[in-house]
């Protein structure tokens, strides 16, 4: 009995204490909570108002792998902490960065790059050719998205010369020189991705994983100094970024088109032109073909040129932009609209029902049974169009395009499929895909017959020897200027090509503008045409950003 009561007594005290403790924590939490809330908000606002050379940005997702260029950091936009050998300006023309000059041998296999000699890493050590060699060697072995499989060797004969040797001529190798940030050999270790050292305009001060990266201007940077001393990149998803913009915590936020209608106090919506395109890929072979992995390929309807051209010409792209994209986009006529390697002659007049009907009739497609769908040799002009289920924009585009095409007597059945299902069915059904890159290699991989049917390469099994030979010439060119006309001819050389006028293996629909909410008064300069990824590319011209005038600063 005595023992029993003792136990109870002890437990009562213990429980009482526990509850008291819990209550006091709760209370002090609240008491602490309310006071600093107000002051911290004030601090935040006044901090921006006073210094003006700090920005808070919510423009993209966190690079989980960290800030190591040799494993994929900085492929789009600015690598920020590192600098590249070359870069592309607002017009996407090549300009020197670390390099002062480069030359390519006649056979296209040897690339010689000369470096400027005044460059220092943020730790004060000079950047030499050895670091460039080290960077490319490391990247080649990293097993990451950096594809250096065509590089046979890289050498640094002296401090300011780098010589790359390729396995086969590849003018698009230049893209690696414009995207791969150079890392210092002396400061590269296992934790480099978390503590990057480089020669870029900024250096990393702090990385709170899953939350934010805080960067400060690199005093050793050789290029134009940015107007902003400190930048904070918040890693928020699109909804959270929009909420942060509404709450006034960020100076620039990447937002999806769905949020574009609502005004946000103190911020302006900026729409940036892109090649973030969406288009319909057609299987080019008759049914019965096989993909690279042995999956069924080909389609008896889409393999007919008249069908593909009719679909292309009947679609009203301006209406798609207005109706589906809320006006934030532009019609797409190729995979690389307005990029240096696209052909302006490939643009055509669309929304032309008469022309579509004429093409179908002369191609032998006539509606004989009066059901509104044309036939040829007993085959109805009907095919499936797949899109990635869950992607609302693609769904709307597919449905709207199907409606437009129906007027011409072609029936498109729109079906949402998972990525994995799509991959298996893509070779025998039309698919709504989206691409868009600053690398003409993409054009090659989409249209060349060399790798047709390998994964996402040339899913339609398109094959045109003339196009192939133009693109081979483009790859073998010894400079980008020399390559450009070949790329353009592959698209349309006057008689054939992968444009609408030629084989029309795709019906490109729209390029989707990337939207950013920007604090009033912040000028983000002349933006490049952005590639497929939304968000980070906006940073590619950070050094041009500035405040427009003093009145608009917060």
């Amino acid at each position: 009995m005595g023992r029993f009561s003792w136990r109870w007594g002890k437990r009562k005290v213990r429980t009482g204490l526990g509850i008291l403790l819990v209550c006091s924590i709760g209370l002090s939490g609240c008491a602490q909570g309310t006071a600093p809330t107000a002051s911290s908000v004030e601090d935040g606002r006044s901090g921006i108002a006073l210094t003006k050379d700090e920005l808070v940005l919510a423009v993209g997702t966190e690079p989980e792998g960290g800030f190591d260029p040799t494993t994929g950091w900085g492929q789009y936009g600015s690598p920020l902490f590192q600098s590249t050998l070359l870069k592309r300006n607002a017009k996407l023309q090549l300009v020197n960065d670390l390099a002062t000059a480069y030359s390519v041998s006649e056979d296209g296999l040897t690339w010689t790059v000369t470096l400027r000699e005044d460059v220092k890493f943020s730790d004060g050590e000079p950047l030499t050719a050895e670091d460039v060699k080290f960077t490319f060697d490391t990247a080649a072995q990293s097993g990451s998205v950096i594809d250096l499989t065509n590089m046979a060797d890289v050498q640094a004969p002296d401090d300011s010369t780098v010589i790359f040797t390729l396995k086969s001529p590849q003018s698009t190798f230049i893209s690696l020189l414009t995207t791969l940030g150079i890392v210092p050999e002396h400061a590269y270790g296992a934790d480099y991705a978390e503590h990057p050292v480089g020669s870029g305009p900024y250096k990393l001060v702090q990385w709170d994983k899953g939350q934010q990266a805080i960067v400060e201007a690199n005093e050793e940077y050789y290029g134009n100094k940015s107007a902003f001393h400190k930048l904070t990149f918040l890693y928020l998803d699109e909804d959270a970024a929009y909420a942060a913009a509404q709450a006034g915590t960020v100076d620039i936020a990447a937002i999806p088109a769905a949020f574009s209608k609502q005004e946000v106090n103190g911020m302006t919506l900026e729409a940036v032109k892109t090649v973030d395109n969406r288009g319909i890929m057609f299987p080019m072979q008759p049914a019965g073909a096989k993909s690279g992995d042995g999956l069924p390929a080909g389609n008896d309807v889409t393999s007919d040129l008249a069908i593909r051209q009719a679909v292309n010409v009947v679609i009203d792209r301006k209406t798609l932009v207005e109706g589906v994209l809320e006006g934030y986009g532009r019609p797409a006529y190729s995979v690389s609209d307005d990029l240096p390697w696209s052909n302006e002659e490939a643009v055509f007049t669309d929304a032309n029902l008469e022309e579509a009907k004429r093409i179908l009739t002369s191609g032998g497609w006539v509606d004989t049974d009066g059901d509104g769908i044309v036939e040829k040799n007993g085959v109805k002009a009907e095919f499936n169009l797949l899109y990635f289920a869950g992607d609302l924009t693609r769904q709307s585009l597919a449905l709207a395009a199907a409606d437009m095409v129906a007027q011409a007597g072609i029936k498109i059945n729109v079906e949402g499929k998972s990525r994995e299902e799509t991959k298996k069915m893509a070779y025998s059904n039309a698919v709504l895909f989206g691409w868009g890159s600053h690398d003409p290699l993409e054009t090659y991989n989409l249209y060349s017959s060399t790798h047709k049917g390998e994964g996402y390469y040339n899913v339609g099994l398109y094959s045109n020897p003339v196009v192939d030979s133009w693109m081979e010439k483009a790859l073998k060119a010894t400079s980008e200027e020399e390559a450009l006309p070949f790329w353009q001819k592959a698209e349309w050389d006057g008689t054939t090509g992968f444009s609408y006028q030629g084989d029309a293996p795709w019906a490109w629909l729209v390029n989707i503008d990337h939207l950013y909410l920007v604090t009033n008064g912040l000028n983000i300069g002349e933006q490049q045409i952005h590639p497929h990824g939304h968000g980070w590319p906006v940073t590619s011209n950070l050094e041009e950003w500035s405040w427009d005038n003093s009145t608009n600063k917060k």
Partner: protein
Amino acid sequence: MTGRNGWARFVGFKMLRLLSLLVGVSVLSFILMQFSPVDPIEAYIGGDMIRVSAEQRSLIEERWGLNESSTERLLTWGQALIQGDLGTSMIYRQPVADIIQERFMNSVALMAVAWILSGIIGFTLGVVAAMRRNSKLDRLICWYCYTLASTPVFWIALLLLMVFGVWLGWLPVGLGVPAGMSADQVTWGDRVIHMILPALTLSLTGVASIALHTRQKLMDVLESDYILFARARGERGFQLFRRHGFRHVVLPAITLQFASFSELFGGAVLAEQVFSYPGLGQATVQAGLRGDVPLLLGLVMCSAIFVFTGNMVADILYRLIDPRMKEELMS
């Protein structure tokens, strides 16, 4: 002496169960990942799909051991695990143990606060409802609990975010620390402020079950003979509850709270997503969506241990509290 033996046997048995649970859960998760349609290489490459050649793909496969058969991969992973190595995450390119350690601390703090808050609030609501049975207040509390029990966590999270983060602007809209502040300047106050919304989300939805259970239990107690006797002696209200009701309802409530670890963990994953809070939730979602097997298995084991611990504590508490269960254990 028999008591100590009993406890040793109890703990030993529990550890054995934990071990078999971990083996089972990780093997099952691994098999599920094999059946998952996510192609880890494609998920890893992401948007650069069209620029990465087949040759580079096989390099990536080789680098991450994805070219081996699944049995081989599971065995390699198991062998490394026995030596204390959880493997390397493919998407974070970091040891899995480091990632979990770093993020678990954030999640644990958040979950602890939410757990304590929901316990206290839920218990209080349950007591108040039972003491004022069938009053308007009781009905309000019941209505609230039923509504909350059927409300998705992320929806509540978005609602709170809109109201307190955007409209009123009282609290930050996300993250665990203030934007742009260097680590040495971040105070505990800052951390608390950033934790309020996610913790509130979790506790708001977590109160339902404990409040309803406590209400029911206390109502049973209030109908007993000794309460009738106490009332006859003139005891009323809080005094009555403190003397005769409290100890009957607080212990079941506490055990219930410990047993709710699994819901807590699941809720934290969702709330962290909405508030961009850097806990395990974000990492779990990434690992699942992008087929990062080592990271996912590490997280699965971590959450299994966490939930198991909660349930075990509840078990132990039962045995400490209820003499009948102790007898059962000893015999």
